[in-house]
């Protein structure tokens, strides 16, 4: 019979390591964060076999004195906290004092460190938690950690490591995250002797985004910013085209710490709603500055989850920053020549000769009045379409779904349903702001048969519907009469709309009235729009495009799908191998 006894400190550390050290990437993260806390301006990481064989992290930080080294690898030893009150306001990345001890307990670790004032360095080795020797060694200023044979003595853990390439990708992700947010610090990552990531200390955020997201995408990212109280939110967000179903391209930082908080992610989704397809996450770098005393990062050893004192304020700021930034983004407006375009040079392209430049039309004959077969000389136009040119020009309707139009510098393709949906949504919102949506009462009420519960539920929302221009009332015990529908939605089928509204009311029982109203507006805008495949006469299309040009944004539909796609001349030339 085994007796209860106190665990051996090495076993304690190995258990704790389970939470902190999962895989090579977590070692990299902990060591790099230590280097950052030590004030390093250049951090080099090199990995062998994805870090399973060997991880080396070198920095030029403040280093550690000889007497600190053995202490550093014991648990709950840290230089970052001293009094309990410090926990209230944690400003450094690490603070728990577990990381080094945890790593040291599951690998062979060598530390070589030299503080600036010392004339030589010290080397200290720990083998799977068993302290080794401390001796002098040659070293440059800073600290060098070498972690070898991770989990070699713990086959159970080692078994769970993935292929080296996968582990390497995880480690690189961490280096990229930290490089994004720590401006002024250079990062270099080598895998099996090959350099695979580098930012220089002097690189600005734009260059860091380019290194992480790729130069083409980084160029199209727009800056976002919002401030509330003492909370600051800044960042860069990519165009809708770069959105992905997973959140891997979302980089959220709280006071310089990378976090992956489910509720913060929800705030991001809320902020990009209508710009990014539902269920997608944008390419995003977002940095939150919150006073340390108003946030608790000590929720989980990996510190990727956080608790805010005033969640609503923080999330509200995030949502606002994203919405404002996106609304002001060049690709959120009807400007062309920005998204999806590979145009490097914003200089002038010759306008296609079949397009009539509106602002120059006075001096030129239009193609329709052209006599003979002599082409009109193509005037040179700036890349962006002039304001008066928007929503004009000749269109080609393809499959009663897409509208093609030549614009200066390329071709614009518009999805007629998406555009109509966006136009409806914005116009309904405008009417709502002015009081209520204008209702067109029906000569013959439309009747819908429902269950008692469904009828009751809809009638609960009767007043809200009325504001939205939908006039309903009970017609017997299980029949609903629709007496009026929004006047602007000429294509609406009342019965379908009401069934949609019913579904929204059923699935949003917990939602706030504003959320329900938004959902209903979306549904109405969609139901009232021309569908893909509907034949629409030229006049109606013209009118639709004109109305689109009047909107604050007509880049994406209410569900976040794109309304317009622009193919630059360069895109077309590439497609035909002319470049």
């Amino acid at each position: 019979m085994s007796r209860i006894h106190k665990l051996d400190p090495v076993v304690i550390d190995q258990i704790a390591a389970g939470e902190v050290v999962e895989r090579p990437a977590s070692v990299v993260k902990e060591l790099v964060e230590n280097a950052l806390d030590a004030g390093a301006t250049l951090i080099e990481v090199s990995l062998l076999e994805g870090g399973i064989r060997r991880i080396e992290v070198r920095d030029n930080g403040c280093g550690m004195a000889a007497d600190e080294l053995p202490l550093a690898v014991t648990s709950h030893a840290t230089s970052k906290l001293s009094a309990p009150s410090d926990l209230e306001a944690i400003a450094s990345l690490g603070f728990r004092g577990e990381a080094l001890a945890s790593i040291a307990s599951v690998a062979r670790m060598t530390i070589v460190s030299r503080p600036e004032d010392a004339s030589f360095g010290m080397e200290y080795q720990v083998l799977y938690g068993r302290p080794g020797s401390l001796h002098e060694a040659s070293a440059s200023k800073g600290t060098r950690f070498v972690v070898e044979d991770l989990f070699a003595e713990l086959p159970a853990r080692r078994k769970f490591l993935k292929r080296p390439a996968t582990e390497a990708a995880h480690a690189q992700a961490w280096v990229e995250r930290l490089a994004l947010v720590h401006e002024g610090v250079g990062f270099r990552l080598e895998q099996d002797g090959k350099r695979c990531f580098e930012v220089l200390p002097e690189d600005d955020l734009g260059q860091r985004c380019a290194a992480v997201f790729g130069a083409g995408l980084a160029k199209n990212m727009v800056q976002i910013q919002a401030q509330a109280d003492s909370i600051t939110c800044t960042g860069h967000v990519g165009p809708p085209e770069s959105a992905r179903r997973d959140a891997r391209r979302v980089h959220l930082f709280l006071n310089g710490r990378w976090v992956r908080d489910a509720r913060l992610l929800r705030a991001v989704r809320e902020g990009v709603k209508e710009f990014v397809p539902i269920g997608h996450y944008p390419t995003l770098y977002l940095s939150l500055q919150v006073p340390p005393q108003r946030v608790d990062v000590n929720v989980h050893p990996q510190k990727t989850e956080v608790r805010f004192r005033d969640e609503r304020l923080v999330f509200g700021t995030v949502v606002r920053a994203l919405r404002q930034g996106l609304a002001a983004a060049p690709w959120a407006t009807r400007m062309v020549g920005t998204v999806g375009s590979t145009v490097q040079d914003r200089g002038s392209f010759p306008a296609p000769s079949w397009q009539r430049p509106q602002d120059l039309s006075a001096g030129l004959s239009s193609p329709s009045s052209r006599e003979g077969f002599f082409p009109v000389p193509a005037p040179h136009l700036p890349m962006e379409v002039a304001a008066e040119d928007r929503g004009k020009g000749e269109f080609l309707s393809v499959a009663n779904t897409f509208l093609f139009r030549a614009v200066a510098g390329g071709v614009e393709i518009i999805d007629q349903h998406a555009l109509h949906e966006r136009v409806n949504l914005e116009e309904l919102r405008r009417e709502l702001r002015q009081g209520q949506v204008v209702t067109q009462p029906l000569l013959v009420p439309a009747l819908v048969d429902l269950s008692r519960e469904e009828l009751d539920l809809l009638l609960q929302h009767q007043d809200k519907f009325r504001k939205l221009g939908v006039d309903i009332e009970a017609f017997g015990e299980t029949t609903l009469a629709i007496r009026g529908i929004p006047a602007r939605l000429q294509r609406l089928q009342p019965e379908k709309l009401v069934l949609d509204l019913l579904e929204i009311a059923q699935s949003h029982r917990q939602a706030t009235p504003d959320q329900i109203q938004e959902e209903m507006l979306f549904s109405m805008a969609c139901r009232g729009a021309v569908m893909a495949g509907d034949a629409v006469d030229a006049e109606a299309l013209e009118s639709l495009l004109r109305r689109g040009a009047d909107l604050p944004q007509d880049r994406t539909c209410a569900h976040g799908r794109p309304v317009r796609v622009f193919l630059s001349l360069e895109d077309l030339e590439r497609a035909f191998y002319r470049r």
Partner: protein
Amino acid sequence: MKFLIDRLAFRNALQRVEMGIDRKPTNPVYGGILIEATNNSLQLMTNDLDMAVRYRVDFVQVDQPGWAVIPGRELVDIIKDVESDTVTLTLNDKGGVELQAGEDVCDLVTFESSAGRGAEERSESFPLVPALEGDPDVAMDKGDFLVMVNSTRFATSRVQDTRFATEGVLFELADGQATMVGTDGRRLACIHRPTTGGKGGKSRAVLLPKVLDQIYRFGQDEEGDTISIWFLGNLVGFRLGNLESFGRVLTGEYPNYGNVIPAAGKHVVRAHRESFTKKLRLASHLTQDSAAVVRLALSSNNMEVASEHEGRGRASANFEVEYSGDGLKMAFNPAFLLEGLKSAHSEQIELQIDDASRPAKFLLGDDFSYVVMPLSSLV
């Protein structure tokens, strides 16, 4: 089959049957034109299963009788573009058709053909429609019928409704009177005209708008002042001179228009059609496209038509009307009013209103009423 025909006569005939050519045929035959040559006349027929057209051309020199189903679109386009005065069509042994127009020759395939007579009995694949024989169910003045179409067609629904067949035009016969109704649930146009013959009795069908459009377009040119109509179950057949058109009857309910049209209203306004139209047009320049709203304000012998476009400006147009009631304000979709006024038969129109939330009835001519539901602000 071999015949010689005047090119213009052939072109006109083809134009009349063109609407029955299926643009995306599931079976190539539906995209064809059945041409049958008999004793000095030619019969053309198309059928896309929604509507069918049969047209007879006289004064054709038929050398050999016979029939063939020829690709429709191609034939129509070719005859538009050849320049000779006459065209000769010859069915060859291989089942193809040679079309000769002056110097130009085209060889067309046929989907089915025969050198004998009786295409309509012997064709195996071309969808046939019954012959219009015997007494029609109704006969009426052609001009009246065309006016009826023009007065109701515009008000039909542009989208398919789930419950009502409002994309079609209701045609009703009772007691020697024909009634046509068009509605999209927001406004309704209803017109009555007397019939002049036929079996009489009561009949009712919702007509496919495409057939009415075709009759409206070509009916005026056909000889004779009468249109004869047969109700053939799921089809309705119309005959005007040499033109016979058949349309599918739309299934589905039709709203009870009798309940929708209000009896005489409390307030009566008489206005000049042209002034009203001009003022409405003026005001509608300053409305937002689709949700256009114009506000009519009535005071003693005056109507104000006002509109506002957020971000562009506002308009107010006044004109003289005959009205002696109290001040009355209501809002309308200007497109609805303009479309009605455009179809009005008389220069003087009458507007009957109860109040701003009840349907407004416009009397736009003899037995022609147009009901429009005003827009409402419910808060």
